[in-house]
């Protein structure tokens, strides 16, 4: 760095995972910096690879253009030393619910008919007329039967003395049929596979009133009473009762060997190397067990998953992708063996899944584990990028500093911040932390899991079927459209509109995107969607903030930290910064979203830090020039 004439324009360029930022400063001979402008553009290619050149040049030219300066005036361009970080996501479902021999129909049709409990022998609607009088009968109606015809058949049988106590229908006809019965009975409908309901068996049908849930069939002793079970049999049917809890309607058919099981699916092992140990943990043991093992293997040196499982495939793919992006012509290839998984984050989640063996598309919430993994390599291609930037711009370009250190330096330009300071960079694939101690030493870590994992959790837990919707649920606040002229926001406030809202959002839960309200394709109510969203953010960002800060905090003690500055795209989120601040408050930490240079918000920290570092180096005596 010596021998360079002081003064002139300096551009700091931060190549991040998704954005490339530039900071243009005029550095005086005495090390004073005048900031002239900043710019932000998309990162081209994977961070840390030669493809970054185009994006870097765009950002530099933008910054120059905004300041009305010419590239000929640029003395030097400074790039951050950034190691490529690639992250991957996988999810394994670890439980499944199986119904054998059709004993239970626990699904929740939106509109069952009648109310109460009916217990009798199953009988097809077509055979009702032949039933002996006085025997309680549960009428089973196959698809294709019109509601008027069904009601007429039941009424005729009842008139003839057949004791019809309940009905199970294929179509969505329960209310229609009930409304037409001379003697109303509980009716459960929308049982798509009604033909699989065994006939001639004892069955119970229960429907609760609107807004209520069933009481008898969801109670093991209720089942025992209805079917006359002994204690051993009661024990056996208790999963049935559990599965029906919370439903408004249910059908249980007693068959000789019917059963409901809730079984764990073995999904293979995760093998963790670190701290001189090799630990093995079953993925189906859940997030807590996995994170416990990860904690014991710190610092993690590598992780592998069982081939043939989602986790194994994901870890292998992350490794291969890294090998591919490091592969550039004219440079020696990076052996895959040198690419190691440096962090894993496991999160417990659930996946709504159709119950195997169900008759009506019953859905159970199955447990699942989501995993994020991160790979980094010590080799970076940033020098190549610097050479190409230099060539493209016609000015000198060099590596000006390491990313984490530069980020802290840039964060220090936030008004009200002082050393020791830690920064948390909340990105898409990884959460990064760095610490600058009072005496100027810096440390930095990357941990796996960030915005993309949140999107995945929201997507699967709400069964949205569209990742783009999940993305907007993550990013934007929710509201309920209550009429064409008003919405109720998730905090309960009401907003009115002059012009009517578009028809596709009518009566729906919507996300308030910058382009306007967009419908969320879900039957869930707003409260549930909100809870899922916040819980996903908590499990990823709050957990990772604590994990990452503990890794940089002296002695792993969060109380040693005074200031935490949040940076990166997710620091612009409408609730994540508050959630992290709340979690850090008990540790006596001042935490907030950065405002680099007092103007840039949580953006441009690294680029600014690069310019500051250069200015400081130009005048070795000067200490941390204040902007």
């Amino acid at each position, binding site marked *: 760095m010596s021998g360079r004439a002081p003064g002139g324009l300096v551009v700091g360029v931060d190549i991040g995972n998704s954005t490339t930022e530039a900071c243009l400063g005029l550095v005086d001979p005495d090390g004073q910096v005048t900031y002239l402008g900043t710019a932000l553009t*998309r990162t081209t290619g994977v961070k840390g690879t030669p*493809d970054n050149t*185009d994006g870097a040049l765009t950002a530099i030219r933008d910054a120059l253009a905004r300041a009305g300066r010419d590239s000929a005036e640029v003395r030097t361009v400074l790039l951050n030393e950034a190691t490529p970080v690639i992250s991957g996501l996988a999810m394994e479902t670890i439980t499944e619910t199986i119904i054998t021999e059709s004993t239970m129909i626990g699904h929740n049709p939106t509109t069952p008919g009648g109310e109460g409990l009916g217990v009798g022998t199953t009988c097809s609607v077509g055979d009702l007329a032949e039933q002996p009088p006085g025997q309680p009968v549960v009428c089973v109606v196959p698809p294709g039967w019109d509601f008027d015809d069904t009601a007429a058949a039941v009424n005729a049988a009842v008139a003839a003395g057949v004791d019809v106590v309940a009905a199970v229908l294929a179509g969505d006809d329960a209310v229609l049929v009930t409304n037409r019965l001379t003697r109303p009975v509980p009716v459960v409908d929308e049982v798509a596979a009604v033909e699989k309901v065994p006939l001639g068996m004892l069955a119970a049908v229960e429907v609760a009133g609107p807004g209520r849930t069933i009481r008898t069939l969801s109670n093991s002793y209720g089942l025992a009473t209805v079917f006359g079970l002994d204690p051993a049999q009661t024990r056996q049917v208790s999963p049935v009762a559990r599965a029906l809890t919370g439903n408004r309607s249910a059908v249980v058919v007693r068959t000789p060997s019917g059963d409901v099981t809730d079984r764990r699916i073995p999904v293979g092992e995760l093998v963790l190397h670190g701290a001189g140990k090799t630990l093995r943990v079953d993925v189906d043991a859940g997030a807590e067990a996995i994170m416990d093992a990860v904690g014991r293997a710190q610092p993690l040196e590598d992780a592998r998953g069982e081939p043939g499982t989602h986790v194994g495939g994901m870890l292998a793919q992350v490794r291969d992708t890294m090998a591919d992006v490091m592969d550039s012509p004219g440079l020696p290839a990076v052996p895959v063996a040198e690419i190691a998984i440096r962090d894993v984050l496991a999160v417990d989640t659930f996946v709504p899944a159709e119950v195997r063996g169900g008759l009506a598309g019953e859905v159970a919430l199955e447990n699942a584990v989501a995993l994020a993994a991160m790979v980094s390599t010590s080799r970076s291609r940033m020098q190549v990028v610097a050479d190409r930037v230099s060539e493209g711009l016609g000015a000198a370009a060099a590596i000006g500093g390491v990313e984490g250190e530069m980020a802290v330096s840039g964060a220090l330009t936030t008004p009200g911040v002082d050393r020791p300071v830690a920064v948390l960079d909340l990105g898409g694939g990884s959460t990064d932390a760095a610490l600058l101690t009072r005496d100027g030493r810096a440390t930095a870590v990357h941990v796996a899991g960030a915005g993309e994992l949140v999107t995945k959790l929201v997507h699967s837990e709400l069964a949205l079927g569209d*990742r*783009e919707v999940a993305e907007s649920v993550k990013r934007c606040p929710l509201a309920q459209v209550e009429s064409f002229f008003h919405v109720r926001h998730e905090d309960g406030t009401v907003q009115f509109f002059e012009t009517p809202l578009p028809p596709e959002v009518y009566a729906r839960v919507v996300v308030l995107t910058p382009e306007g309200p967009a419908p969320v394709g879900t039957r869930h109510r707003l409260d549930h969607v909100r809870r899922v969203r916040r819980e996903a953010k908590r499990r990823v960002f709050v957990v990772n903030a604590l994990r990452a800060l503990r890794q940089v905090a002296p002695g792993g003690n969060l109380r040693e930290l005074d200031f935490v500055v949040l940076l990166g795209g997710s620091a612009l989120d409408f609730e994540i910064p508050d959630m992290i601040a709340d979690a850090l408050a008990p540790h006596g930490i001042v935490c907030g979203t950065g405002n680099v240079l007092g103007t840039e918000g949580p953006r441009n920290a690294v680029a600014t830090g690069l310019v500051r570092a250069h200015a400081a180096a130009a005048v070795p005596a000067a200490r941390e020039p204040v902007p």
Partner: protein
Amino acid sequence: MTSTAPRQSSAARVSRRTEVLEARPVNLDGFVEEWPEKGLVAMESDFDPTPSVRVEDGRIVELDGKERADFDFMDTFIANHAIDVASAERCTAIPSVEIARLLIDPRATRDDVLAVTRGLTPAKVLDVVKLMNVVEIMQGMQKMRARRTPANQAHSTSARDNPIQVAADAAEGALRGFAELETTLGVVRYAPLVAIALQVGGQVGRGGVLTQCALEEATELELGMRGITAYAETISVYGTESVFIDGDDTPWSKAFLASAYASRGIKMRFTSGTGSEVQMGNAEGKSMLYLEIRCILMAKGAGVQGLQNGSISCIGVPGAVPGGLRAVAAENLVASMVDLECASGNDQSFSHSSMRRTARAIPQLFPGTDFVCSGYSAVPNPDNMFAGSNFDTEDYDDWNTIQRDFQVDGGLRHVREAEILQARNKAARVLQALFRHLDLPAITDDEVEAATYAHSSNDYPLRDVLADLKGAQAVMDRGITGLDLVRGLEAAGFHDVAENLLMVLRQRVSGDLLQTSAILTPDFVPLSAINDPNDYAGPGTGYRLEGERWEELKKLRHVTSATNPETEVG
């Protein structure tokens, strides 16, 4: 195919022959009786007006039996802009039979006819073509087509909006001979990626092919202005005031839009067609052809260079009434005889019967039009996002054979498998490299391989739609233009494709493609009604399928060699 079963025969016993006939696909088509009072009639209606015109002080004050005070806005626009006032009274006074004869008389040149037609009123034009049978209509078309050399246009779309498919099918289509390629979307937000794919694929197949992407006006115009597409044609006009208003436009708004396109150097034509007004229930009791003639003259008056007509999306209506396809042939002729470029329909699913499908195209294919189809499906019809065309990829060999049988030029040719595979593969690779350069969602080698050998969208790996849509948005946000595409193609090492695209973009600066019936030859020579005017003057004149082009069209997939009958040539 159809949602309902074929018609039920009555309970009474029918013959085996009737059973066979009932099972014929043609009986799945719908046919209706005429109802002239409501405009459900092709071209022969007692309720159409009688021709008349009166000029006072250089202004038309009476048009087809109506005084100026009673003009609706179509009458007004046509009287003010479409009809040559100086010759109107003289031309309209010429007996219709004389004008009809002029149309088929080889001794009268195209210009001789234009000297008369420029002064005709809508009812007079109708009166003339009503005298002509379908063979005479075809004779008239042969002479009146604006460009001497006929051409064809293709649809290149994907049921999954897969840009790789669009690029590969565009390349194949261009190679097979289409002069224009048109696309549209299932998911509209995919448009930027698909429009880029169409443009790039087209230039791989054959330099100078022109492309368009049918969208709502603002986006379509923006893609054009950025040089991602080269022309536009889905600007609809209608024959009655009420239907025009239902479409939220007027002749003046459309005329303004026409100039807007020209002001950005973008070729443009209007769209209209018989049946649209009665379909919308507001034919005002006029025949389909009379109303279409009003559309044609409105387009003429707006100063647009051409028109896509031939019933287009309403083809089921004229197709169901007596003489309907004669009217459709006549509307193409009228567009040509008032000196407009005519892209002559044959672009929508028309019949269950292959025989009817073929017959429907004869009046355009045999005499030749500026674009025989305004959308031959260069993808299998299930992938056709214009709701299916009259011809698709499965008809390629039939089309080529018919061209060879009758020695007519329908704009296509047989291409050998190796060449097609090469073009498809290259189109996919070029798009792969371009997307990579522009940092758009990656195209894998598997997708390139799939594109090379695919038939339909089902043959391609599924794309990450979310990533694609973000990429598409990025194209708009980052302001990517045709110039960026050229730069990217050049940087990716596809100099020839980059050069082809640059040549197409240069045409916007010259404005040569704005002239009537303009297309670009493979040598980037603009070919229009000005430098390639139709000079038909009877047998032995005009465009003749001969020489090199005829040799090209003699080739088919399987032709037994005369030299060695044990082998095939081709």
